[in-house]
């Protein structure tokens, strides 16, 4: 289960990566690292964070490190998945972040490589990877959450353009985006999955209105986005008109898998043990019992993640379903935050700088939705595990064999 030793070629690559990083970034100090996120939930602080991320992305691109596994033709390094893991391992020690830039690149990039035309790839991939064009994902709508194929935003062909009208929601970073990839309804007269198109749209044009939504945690990284007669050339449709659903599911699978493999990072049980020892609560058997239980979940998650990574390192197909990691990571992460604030006792009522450990655990409690809902709810992922991994029958559906426009929606 432990990381096997590098081969000579891998060791050379690791040295090359580390040398470049040492020359181009500062090491994390654990105190005041900018990569930990915006210093406050203000527009100014978030703008500043974005400028730093963009600058880092550009530097990474210019050094040839922005996408290890992508072909060189698209600005990648043409490397192996093993090299991508090695670079990520080295990168983890440095005070840098590409934040949502990387996430968007990871979602739309592979979809364009897989489904895009040569012209689409050449036009969009290099500036995306360099951080010159920031992307957002325009998927969810008020009436299309877990049931994403129920999107109602209309795309109507007019000459050489697609004309968009409708509303998207939970759109992360739309306020920073130059481009978006949108799932829209181009034919309401056929069953829902057959009338969907996947297109790229310029976000910096009249008719696109972005309204920030403030999360319960207080940050404003996602938005509502309204489209009023917004045009995008038909040349920006991916995989052809009304053939957008396979592209959409491809993106969704990547998204769910990436959320499950994110580690709990700086939220460690070991830190809680240290705190408990210092404040004397470690003498309490109930405290030790709960800390030990928390560690079991933390370690089991890490072992599952290492197993997924090990499969990639050995060139095997991953043999554990990504949804196992997603559900376990999301739910155990929240339990860990509950444990941390329980340990704080009444002091856990505080938040921010007044709270123990600068309120990181209180923030973690309030980040719950980002993992248990974002990237697919844990319930949808459990359906996937039941059906895909275990082969249980699908739920009978009422929305398969009739035109989309005949389906019932909430409130009607």
């Amino acid at each position, binding site marked *: *289960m*432990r990381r096997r030793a590098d081969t000579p070629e891998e060791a050379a690559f690791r040295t090359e990566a580390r040398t470049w990083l040492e020359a181009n970034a500062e090491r994390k100090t654990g105190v005041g690292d900018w990569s930990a996120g915006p210093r406050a939930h203000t527009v100014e602080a978030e703008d500043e964070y974005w400028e730093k991320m963009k600058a880092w992305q550009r530097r990474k691109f210019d050094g040839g490190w922005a996408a290890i596994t992508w072909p060189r033709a698209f600005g990648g390094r043409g490397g192996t998945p093993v090299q991508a893991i090695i670079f990520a391992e080295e990168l983890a020690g440095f005070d840098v972040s590409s934040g949502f830039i990387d996430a968007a690149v990871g979602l739309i990039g592979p979809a364009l490589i897989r489904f895009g035309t040569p012209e689409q790839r050449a036009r969009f991939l290099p500036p995306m990877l360099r951080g010159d064009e920031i992307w957002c994902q325009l998927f969810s709508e008020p009436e299309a959450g877990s049931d994403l194929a129920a999107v109602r935003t209309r795309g109507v062909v007019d000459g050489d353009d697609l004309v968009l009208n409708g509303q998207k929601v939970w759109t992360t970073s739309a306020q920073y985006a130059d481009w978006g990839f949108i799932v829209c309804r181009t034919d309401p007269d056929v069953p829902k999955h057959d009338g969907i198109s996947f297109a790229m749209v310029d976000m910096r044009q009249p008719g696109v209105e972005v309204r920030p939504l403030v999360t319960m945690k207080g940050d404003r990284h996602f938005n509502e986005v309204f489209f009023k007669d917004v045009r995008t050339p038909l040349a920006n449709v991916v995989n052809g008109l009304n053939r957008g659903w396979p592209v959409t599911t491809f993106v969704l699978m990547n998204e769910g898998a990436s959320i499950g493999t994110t580690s709990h990072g700086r939220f460690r*049980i*070991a830190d809680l*043990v*240290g705190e*408990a*020892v*210092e404040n*004397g609560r*470690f*003498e309490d*058997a109930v*405290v*030790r*019992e*709960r*800390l*030990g*239980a928390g*560690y*079991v979940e933390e*370690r*089991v*998650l890490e*072992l*599952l993640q290492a*197993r997924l990574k090990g499969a990639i390192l050995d060139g095997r197909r991953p*043999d*554990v*379903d990504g*949804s*196992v990691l997603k*559900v*376990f990571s999301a739910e155990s992460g929240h339990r860990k935050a509950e444990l941390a604030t329980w340990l704080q006792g009444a002091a856990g009522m505080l938040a921010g700088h007044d709270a123990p450990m600068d309120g990181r655990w209180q923030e973690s409690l309030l980040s719950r939705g980002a993992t248990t809902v974002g990237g697919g709810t844990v*319930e949808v*992922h*459990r*359906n996937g*595990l*039941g*059906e895909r*991994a*275990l*082969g*249980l*029958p*699908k*739920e*009978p559906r009422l929305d398969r064999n009739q035109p989309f426009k005949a389906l019932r929606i909430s409130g009607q």
Partner: protein
Amino acid sequence: MPLVLSDFSLSPEQVEFRDTLRRFFETHAPIGETRRVMASGEGMSAELWKNAGAELGLAGLAIDEAQGGQGFGLKELAIALSEAGRALAPMPLFASAALAGRVVANVVGAGDRAAWLAPLAGGQIATLAWLEAGGVSSSERIRLAAKPAGATHRLSGEKRLVLDGGQAERIFVVARGGGEGGGDGLGLFAVDVGTPGLAIERQEAFDVTRPLACIRFDEVEARAVGRPGEDGAAIARGLEEATVLLCAEIVGGMQRVLETAVDYGNARYQFGRPIGSFQAIKHKCADMLIDFEGGRTAVEAALAAADDDDPERGLLASVAKAHCGPAYVRMAIESMQIQGGVGYTWEYDAHLFYRRAQSCALLLGTASEHHDRIARVLAAERGQASGCGRRGGEGR
């Protein structure tokens, strides 16, 4: 359609070994055989042990070839226990090869391995008697006394909860005293069944597929396996390995109860559809899969650490047991629940797995005991251990 789960972490040879064992147990240890043994009071299937333990060589898998064993590592023994656990095979493989086998191997060290390990490899049925009244698995609770008597020792006291104690031919006993007075005070002694002063009595076991016995020792002649009074650390190490092996047995059972639940969810129709299409059932199965994947991943890590003598081996053994014990219980219960009314009949097998799960969760440290141990290890690692943080390595 049978549920296909990946052969995670197994080499091609190990996959073949696993498949061979699965076919063997399906043929020679169908659940009917387990039930026949249960009803007969024999405690085990002598025929199965002769075939599996001796002829297939399962009893000596992890014993060196020089002592007549197969010379494999813990991994192969784990595979065998996993398949035996899946089948609820009525034979003392865990007691003999894992519990007695690992404790003896650690205690005897470079000593007279042939004397103690060769009979085990040859299929001698052995077990370990370490728990006493109260069942608390802490070495401090051991009272059974060993006294030197010439070249041998005499044991007096009582052991309880001895796995397969009614079937064993040789009992390895953890006793206090008998040494020079230094060391930790514990020693491992061997007593052959039939020795005067030994009284073995069956205890009624919740897990009806694995018998337990209470054994009384009245000045029973015993031979020391290691160094009396100084075996504590080696015994603890052996128990730690046995804990990981018990988790391997658990994983085999977990997979079986998950498969049963999924099969039932596909086959059983209510309201005009398979019940597995309802989210209430599907989500239970998804949670079982998450428990199972976590379990086998943790066991894999603990096995690798034990085989490599990794400094984290104790911690990972505790992580594995703390996860696998409660997870198997949850899974056995959910599998039984999914099977509805028939699930709680005597005739259906769901309760047999539930009984096994419940017993496995309590044997070799409950989850809470391991949680406590883990917390102490973490505190010690931070170099901030308070008075109660320095005892992470003690025996169970």
